[in-house]
């Protein structure tokens, strides 16, 4: 049940400013700053141990920064603001021996959903997730995918302004992935804030408007997906053809060749224009069946920035 705000929309912008979090000697997050705009999907990317979960926990108000500040709608994160946030952690669980209905009631009460509303909303979401007949069943009777969906319901029952999803698609079949994406879209068009953390770059690429990549506690790059890609996308060619060995091994032209199943990705050497390369290929009698200037995938950017760090 996503409530479209009739009045002036509540500001759901998140501002992370110069946040540092240490655990003893270990610095988990260092001087991290970024903004998350309402009505957009924000991808929070980074390898394992980069500080993603620590940052998310600070946004949710589970832990608090040692330095810097995090605000939601201009207000510093506190326990009071928790009811405006819906958090689906990566490591998630349900009470094993409790009925679905009872668990959802408990989570809803903890999120300050008005008592009269609770059952209505639970029915709505269970119906939407096609789980109505499982309402009175215990967690142990549910399949893994069903449990995932129940957990998602627990995240959105209180109609949060901010949705934080940590690896929301793991364990879901393609139909449910589509379904979840629809819900995310709805939230987006209701001008809510969505933070989405994942390892799956292809999903991030499909879903996110803005991204931030962090590695080793620090921000590596950030901005809109467009900008990020464009800043990387000047020198990439998707190529398929034969008799090109000589040209491709010329380091003055092609710095690196990455082979995929049926095509190759050519990274041009500095100062080389794609037009020049094509001319050289034609001159060298290369049989070109595909020659396309492309953007790098988020995956490439991720790997490059993380491995070169």
């Amino acid at each position, binding site marked *: 049940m996503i409530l479209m705000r009739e009045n002036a929309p509540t500001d759901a912008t998140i501002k992370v400013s110069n946040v540092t979090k240490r655990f003893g000697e270990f610095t988990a997050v260092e001087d991290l700053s970024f903004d998350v705009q309402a009505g957009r999907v924000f991808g929070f990317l980074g390898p394992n141990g980069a500080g993603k979960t620590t940052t998310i926990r600070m946004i*949710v108000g*589970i832990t608090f920064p040692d330095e810097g500040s995090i605000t939601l709608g201009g207000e510093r994160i506190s326990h009071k603001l928790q009811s405006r*946030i819906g958090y689906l*952690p990566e*490591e*998630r669980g349900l*009470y*094993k021996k409790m009925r679905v209905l009872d668990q959802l009631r*408990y989570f809803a009460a*903890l999120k300050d959903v008005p008592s009269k509303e609770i059952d209505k909303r639970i029915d709505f979401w269970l119906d939407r997730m096609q789980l109505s007949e499982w309402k009175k069943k215990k967690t142990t009777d549910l399949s893994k995918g069903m449990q995932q969906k129940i957990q998602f319901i627990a995240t959105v029952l209180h109609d949060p302004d901010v949705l934080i999803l940590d690896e929301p698609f793991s364990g879901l079949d393609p139909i449910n992935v589509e379904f979840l994406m629809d819900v995310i879209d709805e939230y987006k068009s209701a001008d809510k804030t969505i933070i989405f953390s994942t390892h799956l770059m292809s999903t991030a690429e499909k879903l996110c408007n803005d991204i931030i990549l962090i590695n080793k506690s620090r921000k590596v790059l950030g901005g809109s997906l467009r900008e990020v890609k464009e800043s990387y996308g000047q020198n990439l060619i998707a190529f398929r053809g034969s008799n090109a060995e000589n040209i491709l091994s010329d380091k003055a032209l092609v710095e690196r060749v990455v082979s995929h199943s049926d095509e190759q990705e050519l990274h041009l050497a500095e100062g080389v224009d794609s037009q020049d390369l094509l001319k050289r290929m034609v001159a060298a009698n290369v049989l070109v069946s595909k020659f396309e200037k492309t953007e790098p995938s988020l995956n490439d950017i991720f790997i490059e920035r993380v491995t070169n760090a």
Partner: protein
Amino acid sequence: MRKFLAVVKHEYKKVVLKWSFLIGTILLPVLAIVVSIVPALIFSIKGEPTRIAIADSNGQVAVRLRQNLSSEKIAERVRRQARESISNISVSQDQQLQRSAQMIESAYQFVDLDTTEKSGEELRQFLLSKVTANEIDGYLIVPDNVNDPKAVFEFRSRKGGDILSGGTFKDALNSAVRSVRLAGENISEARLDQISQLVNFDAKGLDELGAEKDTDGIMIASMVIGLMIYITLAIYGQAIMGAVVEEKETRIAEILFSSARPFELMLGKLVGVGLAGLTQLGIWVASIAVVLAVAASQTELAPFLESVPKITPLMIVYFMLFFLVGFFTYAAIFALVGSMVTSLQEGGQFAFPPIMIMLAGFYFSIAVIRDPNSSLSFWVSIAPFLAPITMPVRILAETPPVWQILLALIVNAAAIAGLVWITARVYRVGMLMYGKRATIPEVWKWIRQA
């Protein structure tokens, strides 16, 4: 506050709506009733009377034996025994005594057989044939030389296993033979009773005001109370630990912490489970009260009730208070342990020290029962960790001055505040630590961290 109440409600329902709670709550009182009432009921079932033939050549013993087995005589003998052991028989006890005497009387039926012509082996064969013909159930052969100390009284019965009435029969025979022998020596039986009467030894305990009190049953009742509190605390402490470990293991903690303050969650858990424990205790106390009330209306159980120490409503309030004190003390410790470990098995090892302290409390309560006013009893009934078990025992054994009870409550409340504070600090960090058990130095650091 609403979130806190939601946690309390959730934890309360989680415990109370479990089968184990229902079974534990109902089974224990039922078991107590069965153990205390059923034997009395079984003994009160009347059996078929035992038909006995007495072969007594001169008839002196037989007459007296039959007299001795009349209800009046039996009742009188019990009364005399009671006088000798200095216990007062109440009116209801006396009624009961007469009733059981009548029961014993009706348990024997004497069959007259003509045995004057027979003796020795012939007599035995004759009586045995009557037994096998099912005309009698047993027989007694009174020897001719009754006055000879070595004389043998041969009693054979097909109901030889009837211990209850067998003793009575033997007593009655003894007394009959003794009276025959005394008559032979020209000594009156009444005179002999007077001379051989035991001294009147009047022993009773005194409380601190010099008032007499009945020590009967106090010891047992104190032990029962001590044991009951110990068991309940151990069970509910472990329940708390289980709940904490579950939330950590399943990572529900992450969702909970994103919804409410860790302190609210932890305190809500303690209060919820504590109320569940109080519910159970309340049901037990109420059912004990009902059982006692029912028993009081039934005279068969009057002697049993005589030994139940007087428990005032104020005492029950004290017991409940100290149960809560003990619960919060140990629940906080178990919650702390639960948030440190990664699994219930691991928690089991760490649960050992608090269980040992509880056990120490139980053992100290034995010292308290023996001497409720010693300085040892004073200190252990005030001390944190021990008082929840020792103070209720002491209150029952001999209620100390109110200031001592209040002091114990204040000292323990302060200890609980400290424990909850420590546990809250460990809880909020420990619950989000996955994969490895927290070490003691780590935990120490969490406690010191602001």
